[in-house]
């Protein structure tokens, strides 16, 4: 699906035409974060109430371990970027991240989270644990359907997030089937999909991050999460049609 990006990245690198200095800038091409679906409820909350409550539901890849892990993970980074890009709004991101929870677990937990947080936007990161456990893709789809329906019923918008691109474990952990299912569910329910897999693959191909590298330090992991937070914020602002210019005009 993303081999074209590989080709483009290759051409850019080979011809020395890569404008941005690798490692410095992790902006992703617009096509990778484009979406047909829009986030109307979220946009409404910002425009009418100047307030946005986001719940992030996910498994271990939504949080970093280590000292101050939560502060450096993408949910916190997302909050920070959104606050910068949408000034004057009360923005809060609450993370419900539990390791080892499958999509079935999260679909079951969602109603309670929705009732307690009353979010306008739910970021649902799924797929990795299901791939680890070898959950049948069809079963995976059923639980995604259930969760997405619950989010819509609670009058919130949803952004689904798929797996990380992890080249070193690729031969052991097959994620393609699950990524396909998520894409399809997003399509069917008309919700936004943050294609983390494609975004990270782009960073790897373009030489922005060396995702093959073995390291026990947190520096790169933090930087990747920061960049995920930025890309996610960009997608949310775009899908909510909340360009900075628009915001100033509206009240």
């Amino acid at each position, binding site marked *: 699906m993303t*081999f*074209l990006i590989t080709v483009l990245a290759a051409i850019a690198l080979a011809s020395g035409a890569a404008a941005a200095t690798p490692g410095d800038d992790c902006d992703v091409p617009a096509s990778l974060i484009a979406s047909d679906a829009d986030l109307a409820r979220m946009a409404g909350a910002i425009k009418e109430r100047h307030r946005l409550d986001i719940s992030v539901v996910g498994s271990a890849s939504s949080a970093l371990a280590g000292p101050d892990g939560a502060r450096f993970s993408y949910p916190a980074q997302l909050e920070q970027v959104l606050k910068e890009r949408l000034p004057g709004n009360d923005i809060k991101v609450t993370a419900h991240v539990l390791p080892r929870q499958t999509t079935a677990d999260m679909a079951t937990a969602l109603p309670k989270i929705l009732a307690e947080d009353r979010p306008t936007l739910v970021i649902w990161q799924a797929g990795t*644990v299901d791939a680890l456990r070898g959950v049948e893709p069809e079963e995976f789809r059923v639980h995604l359907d259930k969760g997405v329906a619950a989010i819509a019923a609670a009058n919130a918008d949803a952004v689904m997030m798929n797996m990380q691109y*992890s080249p*070193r474990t690729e*031969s052991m952990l097959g994620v393609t089937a699950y990524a396909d299912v998520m894409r399809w569910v997003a399509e069917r329910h008309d919700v936004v999909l943050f294609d983390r897999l494609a975004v990270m*693959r782009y960073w790897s191909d373009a030489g922005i991050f060396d995702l093959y*590298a073995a390291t*026990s330090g947190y520096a790169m992991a933090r930087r990747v999460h920061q960049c995920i937070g930025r890309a996610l914020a960009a997608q949310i602002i775009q899908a909510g049609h909340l360009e900075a210019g628009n915001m100033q005009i509206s009240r």
Partner: protein
Amino acid sequence: MAMASPPQAVSSERDLRLDLIRGLALWLIFLDHIPENIVSWITIRNYGFSDATEIFIFISGYTAAFVYGRAMRERGFILSSARILRRAWQIYVAHIFLFTIFMAEIAYVAATFDNPLYAEEMKILDFFKQPDVIVFQALLLKFKPVNMDVLPLYIVLLVLFPPMLFVLLRLPNLALAASALIYALTLKMDWNLPAYPNGVWFFNPFAWQLLFVFGAWCAVGGAPRLAALLRSRAVLVAAIVYLVFAFCVSLTWNFESLERFVPLLLRQWMYPIDKTNLDVLRFAHFLALAAVTVRFVRRDWPGLKSPILQPAIRCGQHSLEIFCLGVFLAFAGQFIIAEASGGPLLQTFVSVLGLIIMTATAYLISWYKGMEGRGPRVRVKSADADLAERGA
């Protein structure tokens, strides 16, 4: 397709097109099995619904019926069944050999790779902390590493093949109808074999058997029956229209900005195109490809003798060995690319080198077999079904 000739004449000489196309399919499977390979950009899965797996399974069915069908006619059910099962056993051993190599790679990654970014993904290694369970499940063909699903499918297809071949030789249309019925029931009833730790087989044998049996049906006399159909203009036009449609759809997978040109209703009806159960769209795509290929590449096409195509033909003639080698080389290549954090240049180098090794090995096997008096020329004359081991 020599339609006027009696069945014996049809099946007496090896159709080099099969070897050629299977050889090419083996190359494509190898390229596709290296993740992040820029060269896999050229493989057919990017230009339509079906991919090299369909071709491989169809031709495997064709050659299995071609070779064991003759053995069954000449030597009877028991002997030919025994040969089919021996073949299945060889494939099983080959699969377990590949699994061993896979385990070695896992052990290496477990020992050398660490990155807090991937703490969650690394949990996959926990499975391998119980070698008793994992090895046992692999021996049962329930645990199959990524990209190691084709051989188990092939094993099941062969194990179930003797009775199917028995019927195919007597009432070919009934056998094909039975196969289609099993396929339809599988889709309806969700039949599949269980996998470890969860779920089902990635290639559902009850669905994929349709392609295998269809290939076998063509080999035992079905192909001439299709000849009139394949010559018709309407079929050709329909096939080309469908291929163009699939091509356009596949473009939207790669250029995501094009996706909005596919109507939502079509997308909702069409997706997901299920590989596990051999989606009808995939099967139809394979049929269309085959129809167009048969139409334009004749059995007596002089190009089949040209030296340029000999490497692929040679690989297609030793398909099991070359398939296994391809899986191994894909592992090794991926490993090299990962170790060197390699870019497109290294990916290209590894891909080309892999194809060269596959070809050289195919020639080496031919040389060995020729030395043992089992070369292609001797083989056609001798009715000995040892040739079965090369064909299927």
